[in-house]
């Protein structure tokens, strides 16, 4: 497949995640949109790694494996991030009984 298709698919997914972050007020949904944006980047990294592999197939058999390992590390970091982030959201819900980010404007004052 042409790499352009993967590029535009990833851009579209990333933009949808961005729209979700900007239009929703539920903290959990915003968090999920961030996960969607991470996944769009992952897809693009895999596509580029396969492109690199095809290009350098003659010189090195494992060209492009770095890209896929980066995706693996992104998933590792995302898993850690989700556990801490959800703990923070649960704590926020316990304190103000809502997950509405509208109430999180205390840094403004």
């Amino acid at each position, binding site marked *: *497949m*042409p*790499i*352009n*298709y*993967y590029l535009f*698919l990833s*851009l579209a*997914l*990333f*933009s*949808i*995640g*961005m*729209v979700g972050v*900007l*239009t929703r*007020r*539920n903290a*959990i*949904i915003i968090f*999920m949109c961030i*996960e*969607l944006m991470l*996944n769009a980047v*992952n*897809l693009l990294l*895999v*596509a580029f*790694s*396969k*492109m690199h*592999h*095809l290009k350098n197939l003659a010189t090195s058999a*494992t060209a*492009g*494996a*770095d890209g*896929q*390992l980066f995706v*693996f*590390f992104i*998933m*590792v*970091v*995302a898993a*850690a*991030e989700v*556990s*801490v982030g*959800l*703990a*923070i*959201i*649960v*704590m926020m*819900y*316990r304190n103000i009984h809502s*997950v*509405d980010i509208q109430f999180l404007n205390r840094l403004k004052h």
Partner: protein
Amino acid sequence: MNVTPYIFWFLSVLALFSALMMVTSRNPVYSVLWLIGTFFAISGHYILLNAQFLAVVNIIVYAGAIMVLFLFVIMLMNLNRETEPQKNRWLKFIGALAGGCLLLVLVAALKDAELKSQQAMVGGGSIGLIKVLGKELFTRYVVPFEISSLLFLSAMIGAAVIGKKETSQTLNS
């Protein structure tokens, strides 16, 4: 007949549609389910690119562990359509407009890039297999791999500390 383009378009439409439904559905539980659909479509793309290890990890970690965690928290808080806070219509419109502008700018910047003629290798190549990735991971990337274990340990401790029941004294201060 080459069936790969059809699979590609089907998975792409599925991913985009699920993502749109995730953003627009009012009920948070439906949002989670649509996001799982998106993750499965992305895993399908990984399989199409012969990145089998990442496809399996994506399903296990994202669609399995992370989304179950989200679903668990949403059900714990008993969020549903009635309690869902809504932004007013203008803010939503402006947010969608800003996201559309971002997409427009990125596409306009990248549509004439030099990689136009490049191809992503579909259905071949061995770098996505667990043998090659494991060798790389445990030779050249062994230090980041060990550091990620430290990251997990700190995340575990952090989640436990944050999620602990606070005493009333710290709440008042």
